[in-house]
């Protein structure tokens, strides 16, 4: 279960987007799901000093603009970064 602390440990949060986002036109339910595995697991990465998680958030933000999504907030753990997006 979750506690209220989960509201204060974001890696990133966009308060302006959060306050101004209007989803009146977000009519469609079914999502599109894209999964790209560059390697079967982290062990297979040749140079582990550079991985997908080394890519700066700003680059992901720009990539997401192509998709028509914006970043509302991010939670990071030692194994993954979870982005919560607009739409």
């Amino acid at each position, binding site marked *: *279960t979750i506690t*209220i602390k989960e509201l204060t440990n974001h890696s990133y949060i966009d308060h302006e987007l959060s306050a101004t986002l209007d989803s009146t036109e977000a009519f469609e*339910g079914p999502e599109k799901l*894209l999964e790209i595995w560059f390697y079967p697991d*982290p062990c297979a*990465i040749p140079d582990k000093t550079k991985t997908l998680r080394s890519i700066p958030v700003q680059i992901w933000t720009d990539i997401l603009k192509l998709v*028509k999504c914006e970043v509302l907030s991010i939670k990071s753990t030692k194994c993954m970064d979870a982005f919560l997006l607009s739409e």
Partner: protein
Amino acid sequence: SSLFVYDHKITMKTCGTTTTLFCLEEVFKQVNLLLNWNCTLDNGKFSPYKVFYSRRSFMFPSKQRSIHRNWNDEVDYLNKFFTNGKSYTVGRSDQGTHWNLYVTDTNEDSLLNGDTECHETNNYEYNNDETVEILMTGLNHKCADQFVCNREVKSATSSIDEKDNDADDEGHLLGYNMTKKTGLDKIYHESKNSCFHHDAFAFSPCGYSSNMIIDDKYYYTLHVTPEKGWSYASFESNVPVNAVSDNKQDNVDVLQKVLKVFQPTEFCLTFFCKNIQNSRSFQRLISDIDIGPKYTKIDKIIYDLDDYQLLYLRFEMK
């Protein structure tokens, strides 16, 4: 919508009129540029370890943008990037409830670079990858109303107090409250040592998205559009439920908990599983599971996909 970035893979799940596949070119460009990961073939196409693209049939396909109005156009676009992709339409295509999948063959060359010792440590995870997705329509009105908030949306020109701390962010606070009220944070029985992270947002005038992280490396994510007439909710998870719950739970139990929150009139379940021998969930799901007296099973389809098994089930309320 959600994006999950791991060291070795990304998962992007986007709602509405998003243009998901238009990120492909830039993703491969940046991965090559910043990480020096070059999976380009001589013909200019790409061969990463594996690619999956899937979606249920849209409710309003004509309102989608560009290639996303038509599955064949999406497949043609994907084939411009990948040489070894296969396309499937799963379920009944005459009722607008079917599910589409594009998947590439596994690029076994990606395994050659591996660190053997590291692989052995992570062998369980690699061999037991599984993903379950539950796509629900026709939500019970009372259940759907829990995801309506009608909070005030500020105009882009109004001043937003940048000193607001995260706890005062209304969309996230309401999302948190929705998660607690509906019990969506209690889908999995966690073991004593599990850790859990949560991020949710309540959209205005309605709608809800959440990302939950278990043990720092597994996620489950929910997206809800509760509008009357086209209400919809999705649940997707890569949590290895047996392992995380110390064998106290499987995906049939997870399914029942999710259905209790939304009570849809119709839903489909897809389950990708790498090792069906080790998956108690797969064995139970392919048997005649009892998910209560309310639902009738309409379809059960199994695909043998290269190194994964795919199970597709569709149910309707009686």
